[in-house]
């Protein structure tokens, strides 16, 4: 299920518009993240579970994925591993969002290749900073 607006075509000759994927099974969380990062600079695509998230990522080759860890279907960590294993997604950055708060969980996420890791509840401004950092990284 996708919501928001989706544009699969990037205008020829213009700098590519960056795509951001938000994957969370809680609609209220998707709404919060979407509202936080909402900008004309990105195209935002939402996914309600891990399986759907992986399908959307493969289709849109996004610059950034905001992944909830505990999701039905595929978990956030599974999706993260798939992203890191796919050469065509080498440029895709991943920020994990999770209700898990223990050190070991954070380590697991970073080892799997996440660029950032935010625990719920998080500050939307903090999230925004992380997103902008991720997208400006060379």
């Amino acid at each position, binding site marked *: 299920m996708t919501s928001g607006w989706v544009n699969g075509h990037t205008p020829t000759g213009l700098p590519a518009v960056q795509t951001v994927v938000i994957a969370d*099974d*809680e*609609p*209220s*969380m998707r*709404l*919060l993240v979407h*509202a*936080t990062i909402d900008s004309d600079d990105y195209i935002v695509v939402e996914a*309600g*579970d891990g399986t759907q998230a992986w399908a959307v990522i493969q289709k849109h080759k996004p610059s950034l994925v905001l992944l909830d860890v*505990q999701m*039905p279907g595929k978990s956030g960590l599974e999706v993260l591993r798939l992203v890191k294993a796919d050469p065509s997604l080498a440029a895709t950055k991943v920020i994990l969002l999770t*209700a*898990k*708060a*223990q050190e070991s969980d954070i380590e697991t996420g970073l080892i799997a290749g996440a660029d950032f890791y935010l*625990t*719920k*509840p*998080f*500050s*939307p*401004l903090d999230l925004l900073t992380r997103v902008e950092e991720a997208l400006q990284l060379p």
Partner: protein
Amino acid sequence: MTLRRRGWSLRQYMAGFMGVLLVVAALAELAVHSLTEQDARQAAQADATFAARVAANEIENELNAFRETTDEQAANPQAAVVASTPNASCGITLAGGIAFSSGHLDIVTPDGSVVCSSRPRPIGPVYARAAWLPIALHSRVTTAPFLDPATDQISAVVASPIAGGIGALVTILALAPVGPNLAAIVGGARQPEFLVATTDTNTVLARSLQPMRWVGTRLADTSLTRSAGPFERPDVDGTARLYGRWGVGSTTWVVLAGADRTAALASADQFASRSLAIILAGVAVMLVTAFVVFRRIAEPVRRLSQVMRGASSGAAVNAVAGTGAAEVADLAEDFDKLMESVKRELAERLTSEQKAMVSERNYRMLFESHPQPMWLYDIDTLAFLKVNDAAVDEYGYSREEFLGMTIKDIRPPQDVPKFLELIANSPTFDRSGPWPHILKDGSTIQVLITSHAIRFGEHDARFVLAENLTESRRLELELSQSKARAESNAELGRAKDEMMSIVSHEMRTPLASIVGFTELLVTRDVTARLRKQYLEVMLQEGLRLTALITDFLDLRIIERGHQTMRFAPADMGALIKRSVDLAGEAGAPIELRLPENLPLVRVDSDSIFRVLTNLLSNSRKYSPDGGAIVVGAEVVDGMLEVSVQDHGLGVPADALTQIFEKFYRVEGADRRSIKGTGLGLAISKKIVEVHGGKIGVRSEGAGKGSLFYFTVPLAQAQAQIGDVLVVEDDAGFAQLLEAELTGNGLSSIWAADAETAEHLMANVRAVVLDLLLPGLSGEIFLEKVRKQRGPGIPVVIVTSKNLDSAAGLALQKAGVMAVLLKGSDTAATAARVLAKTLGPVLVVAS
């Protein structure tokens, strides 16, 4: 063990059998011997008689032939010439016979001289002294014996006269060869002895044995010649013989033929000895057979019998192994099996007897040393039969005093009629109270009685455990406190971990929404539309968090046993109807299928109401496309089973066992948007389990609907009887009322709603009624009481409702004893009022 001889042993039988066998064999041998000897003797005598007869005939015939020849020669004229002419020449010859084989023929003159002879003629008158000569000159003569002077042989004489008395023709026959001749002619194979003798002179004429010695001798014993028929006797020379005899017709001679007895009986003896050999062989075969039988049957049986009697150790099969006949071996095997099962049974019996002894001792110790008073009393005489130490300590009476009392002596007098009525109808097992009991010092204690009907010796008795309520409550509290301390120490770490985990997983998400949107609202300028959207999400998530915390804490309380459950009779139908009313009209329609006259259940009404609303709420949530929800109830195996069936999303098979676990959610796109704390079913499960019931779910699978059910126990009949019916939905206030009633010596039953109370009002003497009740109102219930029980039953109203005067008047008309506004001493007042009406007020010792 005394051994009694019922008869001979097998050994004795075998010995007896062999003895009889030997005697029979000996008798048979004797019989054979005697019979064969008799046969042989008869045969030998018959043969001898026959031989005598043939010999006698031969002698007769030859004598006749010699007579004829002598007559013919005498009649010849030449004979006269020769006799009358001295020295005339002549020639005559004698042809001998077979028996009489030698002799001579002479012509003799009257002076005894021989004038012509068939042998050389003797000179002189040789026959002058012959006795036969004068007779022979005139007539025929046959005589013997005669010593022939011419030959010096004993002879027989046959003579005939020559005409004119001038001489005689004489045939002289030598007798010595006759015996041997007869033996040669007619003796046959048996070779009997032949003896010819005269019967008148008893003189031997011929004998086949030693003729030269015997011929001519006279026999001293006349019996030999005169015995008739065959006979046995010693011969003249001593040999035993078997004789036959036959007379020679024209003479006084007799022929005796005698067979040698020894020789005659030799064959018989031989036959007898052969038969003896055969009999001995038969006996030997019989003895061997008997011995084998003894070895294979008697001996194994004897050894078997020794094993059976315990004289010899070991298994019976071993005792007969290898030697016993198949039947004996089978017998031994059967015996071993029998012994095996007997031993086993004995061992089992011994063990169970020991167990019974130990168990009996344990029970006695338990009874004697139990810290709470216990006793046994006869249900007919009500006399105490046995009391324990605690009863003696608690009640103040000595054991002897107790045993001289009846159970009525420890009851207040006003309680006795009711108590007797209860005893008459009490079930096998009964738990009731509180009852006031009077101690020896006159004070009263409140006790909870647990009793059980038992058989004690000759008495039908009841076994009673009396719990002093004050004491048991204190113990209970101490126990639960120490238990809680122990549990909390052990569980603290685990509980903390669980709490951490729960907070992380389930509370952070709504918290993240609330915190996040709050920050957005604080830091950004947002449109009014967005602000409203954000605030709505925040409210929703805040409520979700609240529900989660509430459910979680409730679950913790129930799990740790801190939830106070007030079990009381309740009308499940009424609870179901109220939960359906609460669910409202929105969503899938709910249909009730409740049978008439459902029995009352024993539940904590508030808790079960929570289970019902939870199940109904789930059914609604998981039936997004509608489809009727059916609520049913029925009695199954002594429990009431309530079911809630929907036609919604259903439960996949793999989730059926996990669905009652905390925070378990069935995954699927169709139900992701359905909200819930994930604790409702876990709480329901705990509540049902505390009631002693079961909760479960049945579903054909996802999309096929589901059926949730749970069971609760039925209310016991004795829990539905009491002095006062307390109709009050506030469990705390109801408890206070009951305690006050107990303090006034009144028992009570509690109904949390009017529907339940309707079932109970027939069993009580008075009613305490709250007006504000769930479901049916107090006023309507009051009408029903008056209708069923009439104006006589006392009713006290306790209410927090401010009644106007009209309402008060209506209640007074309805015959209410008192209307009490709920306050600090309402319960005590209500109890006192009722105690005054129903019976004497008891002074409760502090």
